[in-house]
């Protein structure tokens, strides 16, 4: 025969178990839903993405500065490596904008543009736009001639399009932005 205290203790333990179980189940289900919707490819993307949802994600500023320096020296591959280190979870819009810009500049040519690099640039600019709350992204950088994600996207799309303007001989006088 259980005493009243024993019964109360057992009931409290059961209540705690049920409440704890429900909380953990809901948290786990939310995590799985997040994984399905974001499709992370690396552990860094998982941890960075989860940190970003609670506003705790920070890029590596030193790596970002290195990336910018390489970018301005037209060392685009090196720039992307450094920017990748700065933002391993691909959760920072500004960094992804510079990644997209590096693809644009590397793929740009007077006679033709590199379609595969432009395609990667489009992916990066789409990532950058997706990371902004209202879809607007503007970068205040005097060294750039394109300051918004919309302009950069338009430039990349125009570069991948094949039409009559490709035959215009005046295109060799165009300048890289």
């Amino acid at each position, binding site marked *: 025969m259980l005493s009243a205290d024993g019964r109360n203790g057992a009931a409290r333990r059961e209540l705690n178990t*049920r409440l704890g179980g429900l909380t953990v189940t809901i948290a786990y289900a939310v995590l*799985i839903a997040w994984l399905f919707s974001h499709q992370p490819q690396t552990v860094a993307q998982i941890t960075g993405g989860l940190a970003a949802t609670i506003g705790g994600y920070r890029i590596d500023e030193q790596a970002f500065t290195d990336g910018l320096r390489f970018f301005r020296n037209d060392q685009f591959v090196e720039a992307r490596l450094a920017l990748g280190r700065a933002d391993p979870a691909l959760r920072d819009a500004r960094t992804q904008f510079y990644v997209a810009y590096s693809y644009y500049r590397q793929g740009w040519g007077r006679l033709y543009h590199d379609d595969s690099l432009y395609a990667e640039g489009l992916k990066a600019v789409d990532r950058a736009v997706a990371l902004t709350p209202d879809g607007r992204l503007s970068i205040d950088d005097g060294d750039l001639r394109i300051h918004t994600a919309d302009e950069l996207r338009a430039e990349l799309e125009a570069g991948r399009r094949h039409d009559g303007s490709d035959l215009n001989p005046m295109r060799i006088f165009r300048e890289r932005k």
Partner: protein
Amino acid sequence: MTGAGREAIVLPLTFLTVLLLGSVRVAETTVLAPPSVFALVLGLLFIRIVVQSGTLAPQRLLASSRSTLANANGLAALIGLWLAAAQVIAVLIPDSGLPRIVCGLLLLILLANTAAADPDRTRLLRSLTVTFGALFLLKFVVLAQLSAPGGGRLNRILQTLLEGMTLGTLLQPSQHAVTGYLALATIVLFLVALVLLPMRSVQTTGGALVRNDRESRE
């Protein structure tokens, strides 16, 4: 583990783990694929069979006599069972082509046939183990071997012949071997979780075990 612990923690978390593990497809890129609509519908049919066989007694998870919190735990376990069942079905159906259609149809017929046969808990669990095992071997051993890139000259000739004869509808997109291991772990975990479900009570009459509902029907 108490009944409350199993119902509130073990079952929902196991089913959600089945959902997550079963979603991993490792190829050139890793994709987490949620169950398709067809798999979710088959999952509902699966729950009907599990309840019908007495493997799950739904009144032990959801009932007006239980507290709201206990019912919430029961509902989480039931939803988890549905999603996990759908995910296991999605894992077992090949990814593309004719095998996808045939296996989907085969699973639908097998589940409908199982429902019509009205097996008890033990027979259902045995039947599911055989069905899941056979479909696993078909997808992750037979079709995976036929579709595996590279290999010897004979393998490539066989692949070309098969591709020609079936108009490219037989061969599957290649997957990393780890996908097969994950699928096997998913299926085993799901079968273990099925055993842990609160089953319909049985009573002893004259030395024989008789299920309550079957006794009343007969």
